[in-house]
């Protein structure tokens, strides 16, 4: 994580993945992201496959065969690509958008991603996850504490 010092985080808030919960009502998972002070909570709904990929990384489970995000990590290792940060950049109509920042021999690149893929990759490459202040502000209308209460954070990680 030494490279964190190089990152301009002026408008960004660093988040950690607090847990992944299956959503009983739909075939999806909810990824709970929190900031270091636990002041902000960002729940993101993700597909079953991506939720599973995030859960495996959180639990430190290694699949017998490389999963999709393991293959991306494998590419970055072979090609000497550094995944420098994953940033949740936007939310529109409850859909989140993210960018993965890469450093290659030719320089820095940003590629579009769903947050689920960005997070699944970030957890496998020990890269920090950020969200813009603006996205957090847009989330502000929701009473997240009540929301988390409802889901029961004690179930996290199961």
């Amino acid at each position: 994580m030494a490279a964190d010092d190089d990152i301009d985080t002026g408008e960004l808030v660093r988040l950690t993945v607090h847990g992944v919960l299956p959503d009983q009502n739909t075939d999806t998972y909810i990824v709970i992201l929190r900031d270091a002070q636990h002041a902000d909570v960002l729940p993101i709904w993700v597909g079953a496959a991506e939720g599973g990929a995030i859960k495996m990384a959180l639990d430190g489970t290694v699949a017998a065969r490389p999963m999709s995000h393991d293959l991306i990590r494998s590419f970055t290792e072979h090609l000497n690509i550094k995944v420098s940060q994953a940033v949740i950049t936007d939310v529109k109509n409850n859909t989140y958008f993210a960018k993965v920042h890469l450093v290659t021999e030719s320089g820095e690149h940003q590629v579009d991603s769903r947050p689920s893929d960005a997070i699944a990759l970030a957890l496998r490459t020990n890269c920090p996850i950020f969200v813009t202040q603006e996205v957090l502000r847009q989330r502000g209308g929701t009473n997240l504490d009540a929301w988390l209460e409802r889901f029961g954070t004690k179930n996290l990680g199961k």
Partner: protein
Amino acid sequence: MITQMKVRGLTFDPYSNTFVVILRDEHNVDMLPIWVGKSEASAISFALEGVAAPRPMTHDLMKAVLDAAGAKVISVVVTDLKDNTYYARVHLMSEDSEYSIDARPSDAIALALRADAPIFAKEDVIRQQATEELGQWLENLKPEDFGKSES
């Protein structure tokens, strides 16, 4: 020896409750059915139908990462079949170096379709597969069973 394969279609196997990608050689002589998960089936289906998802799917991100590094997918090869599990390798070219990377066939195929890269299978794998009873099951499939990607 390796044989070039094309993705002939995608179908659903109600017995195992999973999707099957059908690979065939260009003469429709050899066939290789590969069982894949739902999300990989969806990734392959998007590419087959040329549908661009509103947001990049996992394999779109995978390709974007390779593009950023200037790496090209030369080919993907289904290399092995052990205990009903298929193995594949993705061959990459970056600058003057070649890389051969272990992958599941589902990921390899989803990536190959996005990178316009050829898909090959080792003849050993095709032969080994053919000795199983899968061919018979596939013969019984109706044409309308193919091409369905939605569950």
